[in-house]
């Protein structure tokens, strides 16, 4: 059971990170067709993350402080490293300062905090 819980937490972290990366990249571009694509990808990752969240107890209420901090830190680190990689390769207009805000927002939306 614990093993399953850890599995779902890891998968939740992966998909939440992808969702936040998509959300921040969406804001960095101006092409409407791409914005739409990012939004769709954000929704796909977010829906997957929701599915994993529904498998982690307690369902319907926020996770323990220890769990939620663990998830928050992992997601922030992953998002930052993905974005920094893109900035180093010339990706423009990425707002790295918005990571914590976006992560906190998504964690609230999904019921982690």
């Amino acid at each position: 059971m614990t093993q399953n819980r850890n599995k779902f937490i890891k998968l939740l972290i992966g998909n939440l990170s992808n969702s936040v990366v998509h959300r921040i990249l969406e804001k960095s571009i101006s092409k409407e067709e791409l914005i739409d694509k990012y939004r769709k990808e954000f929704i796909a990752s977010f829906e997957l993350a929701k599915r994993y969240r529904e498998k982690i107890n307690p369902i319907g209420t926020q996770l323990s402080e220890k769990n939620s901090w663990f998830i928050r830190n992992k997601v922030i680190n992953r998002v930052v490293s993905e974005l920094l990689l893109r900035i180093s390769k010339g990706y423009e207009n990425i707002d790295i300062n918005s990571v914590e805000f976006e992560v906190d927002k998504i964690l609230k939306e999904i019921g982690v905090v």
Partner: protein
Amino acid sequence: MEIIARISKGSKMDQIYIPKQRNILDIGEYVTIKPLVLENNIDRDYEKFYFYGIRKLEPIKITIIKEIIRYINKNTYYENIIITGSFLDKGFNFKDVDILLISREKVNKHLLENSLENKLGIKIHLLILDNKSVRKGLETDPLYQSMISRCVAVKRIAPINKHKINYKILDLHLLKSKILVDNFDILDGKEKYDLIRNLIAIHLFLKGIKVTIAKIHKEINLLLKHSVEEIKKNKIDKKSFLKKYKKLYNEASDKILKGIKYDSKQK
């Protein structure tokens, strides 16, 4: 309320007669005329279904496809219906039936999905897009290409003329496959296969090759030294597999990020 009427032959123009005693359709009102498609047409039209990348399909699956099409035909307007995904694989190991409904009209996705599920007792995954988005997707998205490479369609799918690489779209698809590196131990065979297929589809697309399921499977064998069956059964040696997978992932990622850099310099 609606009126069903028959077209009758006229001398100069054909006409449709409707009763004088009616509550709707006043004189001078504009109306839309469209054919009332009879259910039997589906059986008659069956010979006209288009099979792409499929050699053989179990008769029971054809019956299911006919039922799906009959139901959609009765309940909504469409330009094409495309059945794709694992439902078309040999055997009965599919989780759901993937349906791509091409329509320019607004369709209630959840309602249609739920009613099809209730009718057939099979999980349905419905994707609704307009024709323009599908064409654009086929030109720029390896996943669309692989989806269409093996399918059953009600109408013929026009071949793709252009192959456009949009690095930002590929970047976002590739990101999904990173989950495999970080979560190798906890993913099951099917989940691993999906992420590997995604990476290989991007890899082929970047080479300018038309992406098909057959080509993806061939490339998996060649580059990752594992058969699709082994992957689906989760019989992979982690160390050697991840080494090859990471190499491929990094190569694709480097190409994409270089492409993004080049594109931004061009502006």
